[in-house]
């Protein structure tokens, strides 16, 4: 309730300021809402949102599946860690923009390059978190799994994943927010569709209404993902924990 009121307060404040300055550089809530409706009806907005979301999902899945495997290997094996660590440090410190430019130049201005560039930006972060989680795996429970001869699939599901869950949840959370921001940059630089592309063209036209409309639409979607997907998943993974008194 307080949260909703606070949000309404923000919109009211925005409306008051917009009305006061009365400039095309700060459109009011009504104008933005109108643009949102118009572009939703023409299917322009859903189309670009879908393009961006698909890229987010694709990059996310690639970064996660490869990152978890690499992180697990580095957490388990000292040799893998010594080999992989310098690479990891380079990747972690490579600016997103550099990866994007290199990908476009080397691979070409296409979808594969765009998604690879985003995935590569998120990948090292997943590796680091998974590696930490793997290092923290309980040796005691590994003994239990050994004595009772649990098969690998059973181990992963019942022993390993529940312990990695908090680390993966952290990677997931930070991943969602980082990835969609980078996707917009990738689209701005080299894609003919998606929210980033629209923002780029609106920027060159000083079309503030469109910029506001698409930004809000995207933020709304990410909020929905957070509350409908991320939080329920986390609650489910943590249901066995005793509630803090």
């Amino acid at each position: 309730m307080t949260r909703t009121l606070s949000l309404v307060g923000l919109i009211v404040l925005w409306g008051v300021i917009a009305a006061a300055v009365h400039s095309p550089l700060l459109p009011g809530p009504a104008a933005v809402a109108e643009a949102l409706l118009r572009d939703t009806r023409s299917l322009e907005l859903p189309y670009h949102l879908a393009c961006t979301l698909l890229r987010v999902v694709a990059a996310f899945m690639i970064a996660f599946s490869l990152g978890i495997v690499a992180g697990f290997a580095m957490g388990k094996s000292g040799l893998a860690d010594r080999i992989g660590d310098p690479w990891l440090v380079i990747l972690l410190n490579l600016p997103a923009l550099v990866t994007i430019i290199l990908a476009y130049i080397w691979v070409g201005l296409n979808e594969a390059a765009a998604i690879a560039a985003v995935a590569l930006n998120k990948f090292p972060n997943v590796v680091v978190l998974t590696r930490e989680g793997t290092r923290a795996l309980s040796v005691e429970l590994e003994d239990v799994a050994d004595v009772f001869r649990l098969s690998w699939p059973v181990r992963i599901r019942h022993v390993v994943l529940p312990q990695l869950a908090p680390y993966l949840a952290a990677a997931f959370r930070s991943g969602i927010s980082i990835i969609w921001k980078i996707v917009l940059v990738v689209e701005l630089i080299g894609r003919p569709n998606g929210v980033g592309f629209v923002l780029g063209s609106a920027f060159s036209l000083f079309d503030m209404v469109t910029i506001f409309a698409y930004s809000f639409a995207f933020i709304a979607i990410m909020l929905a993902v957070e509350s409908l997907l991320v939080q329920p998943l986390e609650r489910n993974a943590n249901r066995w924990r005793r509630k803090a008194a």
Partner: protein
Amino acid sequence: MQTAGAEKLLELRVDAKTYVSAAKTPVGVLRDFSFALAAGSFATFVGPSGCGKTTILRIAAGLDRDFRGERRISALARIAMVFQEPRLLPWRTVEDNIRIAMHAASVTGEIGEWLERFDLSDQRHQYAGELSLGQARRVAMARAMSIRPDLLLLDEPLVSLDDTVAARLRRELREIADSHKVGILLATHDLEEAAELSDRMLFLAGKPARVVLEKELSIPRSRRDRNAVMVLVDEIRAQAPGARD
């Protein structure tokens, strides 16, 4: 696996077992230790904490292979262990903890029967992380017995339990030792416990540890009442002044 009465279930020969301490100096744990357990018999290692009992059990379980010597056990032998701490999967229910072990051992059977036997029926759907220590120890015991092991390793399974629970678990152990053809290895520092339960007691002492006294208990387990146990304990104390309770 069914072995003939005289046949050895497990044969251990440890010429030397050392571990490297945090200060990088090798510490001898066991030396010139050899031991054999016949199928269906119950042996107990008695000695003060830190004397190497846990190490022997870990070697017997196949968890510790870093020693000079030999371990012989049929590859088909089913091994179960109750560790000093219960070591359950806190994110799985009591029922699932047992089910996972049974499933890995391809044992079919009613879980309810085991829960009832260890007075856990009310905790069936509780997460293992929510149990009291006494309850968790009972689950660990039920988990080990539910797979109908050929070799059951018990590492101080009754430590820090209140008397009634400990007495009940001892009764369960006696019953299982008598009714199932299972070889049991118990590590304890409790003389009474050892005298009540085992067919053979081995006293460990020294650093590195060796067997200083071995005692066959000729009175059948079923005829050892409280009195008989106390007589045995006194007798042992007289023979091994170092054997403490």
